């Protein structure tokens, strides 16, 4: 059995009195995408910065490709997109990528050029002139240009429009196909849902749940807003499995469904639905059981 590409054992990181990461165990195997979910401040970025050797763990071990993360040989095989992207403002994108390519032992320009094209990024522009989204593209190109075996992505699609988001997710899938291990952090479930094989949920520095994506779907809550064309009896949703928090507002109803929405949809078929909106951006809403009262006692 080969060792996992990313292995975090009993990781603990404290900043003064603040415990940012607390006894975290996490592994990502080659050919796997691991979604690290958590709201801002949950410890995702601290974990990732330990993985890159930017921070020294207070306790515990961080192992990348069976070696210490600060090893140059390991770094050669790692691609990293930071959550907060800052490159030298005065440099042209092309010059920055060439410089980083040199540090990687020479990456032929054709590779980053293709990636720039794929992400619609103009390499002749200066980094300082780019929008946040375009700067993130630079980060993505430099992380992928050497076909890394390990990808560490800290909210890589934040600020990108949906089409480009899909492009990035495709690039991640291609790397997975090629056998790379991917740690993909996000505070948005829908994004991770489409790409992750396994998901870990981080809260206040602790991994409060880790499971296959398929299993997590069953416990995820969805908040739906349904608008009807005509009047609907208030009791229409009584007895629907997993439903709670029904709130009427004229012809619009807000409901919260735990797990599958299949039963609800069947019931809705009896009425004329005009609009169906989901509000599933908020992680704390989705995993209420973990972030709410349930999160404290496991």
């Amino acid at each position, binding site marked *: 059995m080969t060792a996992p590409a990313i292995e975090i054992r009993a990781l603990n990181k404290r900043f003064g009195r603040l415990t940012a990461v607390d006894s975290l165990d996490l592994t990502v195997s080659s050919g796997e995408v691991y979604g690290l979910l958590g709201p801002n401040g949950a410890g995702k970025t601290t974990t990732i*910065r330990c993985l*890159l*050797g*930017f*921070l*020294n763990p207070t306790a515990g071990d961080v192992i990348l490709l069976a070696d210490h993360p*600060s090893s*140059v*040989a390991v*770094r*050669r095989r*790692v691609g*990293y997109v*930071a959550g*907060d*992207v*800052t*490159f*030298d403002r*005065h*440099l042209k994108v092309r010059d920055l990528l060439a*410089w*980083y390519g*040199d*540090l*990687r*032992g020479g990456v032929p320009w054709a590779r980053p050029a293709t990636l720039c094209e794929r992400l619609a990024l103009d390499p002749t522009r200066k980094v300082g002139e780019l929008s946040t989204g375009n700067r993130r593209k630079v*980060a993505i190109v*430099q992380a992928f240009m050497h076909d890394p075996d390990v990808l560490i992505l800290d909210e890589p699609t934040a600020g990108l429009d949906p089409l480009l988001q899909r492009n990035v997710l495709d690039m991640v899938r291609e790397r997975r196909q090629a056998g790379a291990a991917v740690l993909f952090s996000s505070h948005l479930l829908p994004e991770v849902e489409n790409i992750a094989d396994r998901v870990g949920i981080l809260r206040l520095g602790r991994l409060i749940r880790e499971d296959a994506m398929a299993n997590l779907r069953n416990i995820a809550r969805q908040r739906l807003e349904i608008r009807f064309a005509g009047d609907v009896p208030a009791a229409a949703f009584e007895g629907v499995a997993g439903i709670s928090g029904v709130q009427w507002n004229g012809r619009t109803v807000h409901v919260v469904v735990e797990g599958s929405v299949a039963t609800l949809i069947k019931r809705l078929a009896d009425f004329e639905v005009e609009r169906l909106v989901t509000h599933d951006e908020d992680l704390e809403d989705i995993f209420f059981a973990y972030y709410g009262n349930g999160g404290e006692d496991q």
Partner: protein
Amino acid sequence: MSAVIVLRQMLRDRTRSTIWWSVAMIALVVAVGASYPTIKASAGGLEDLMESMPEGLGELLGAAGGITSPVGYLNSQFYSNMFPILLLVFGIGIASWSVAGAEREGTLEPLLANPVRRSRVALGRYAGLVLLLAVVVVVTTLVLIALRGPFQLSEISVANLVAAGVASFLLALLFATITYAVGAATGRKGLAAALGGGLAAATYVVFGLGSFVSALESVRWLSPWYWFLEPSPLVDGWTLASIALPLLVIVPAVALGTVWFTRRDLR
């Protein structure tokens, strides 16, 4: 190899600003040098003025050897103030950016995600600081050497002008190195620049006032300005104090700052 790549990029990034600094320094040295014939012509009156000043004040002005001799003039108008102070500003600016400033602006972390050791990045940039500072000193010294005839300063030998250039370089590098080391060790750019610049100012005061404030006289030997100016390389050429003592501070400071940097958390 990776240190060279980091260095090369730094030199590329700073070519333009270094050219401007060199131009400014040339302008300064030409202005100071070209004024000397006039000063020399009115030597008598100026010497009388110096004579009438309280003992020690001349030294405070960097003019212990009188201000009308070529050595006294260059020391008082150039080597004991404007030149090293401008070099310090230039050097401390680069030094505070090299690690701590880059860390603060956020560009250090993505750079360190590449397969390059922290020590290589830090030392590559320190080498850049040394080179850029050297370029400005060399250019200025060369201009002074080339024009010392028309400036009526030929009494000072080329060797002594070179020695004074090297000593100025080491003085500025000393304080820039402290800035580098503090920045590398702590990641605090403001603290690093303040310590480097503050120490330069404090030791300058100790040196200047030490000649007539007895309380400071006993610590005067601690001041790098004292090492640099007494005895003056313009008179004595390569002095041990102006070359060896700065190196005694510089070498351990670079080593300590760099090692510390490789072990700490990035901010």
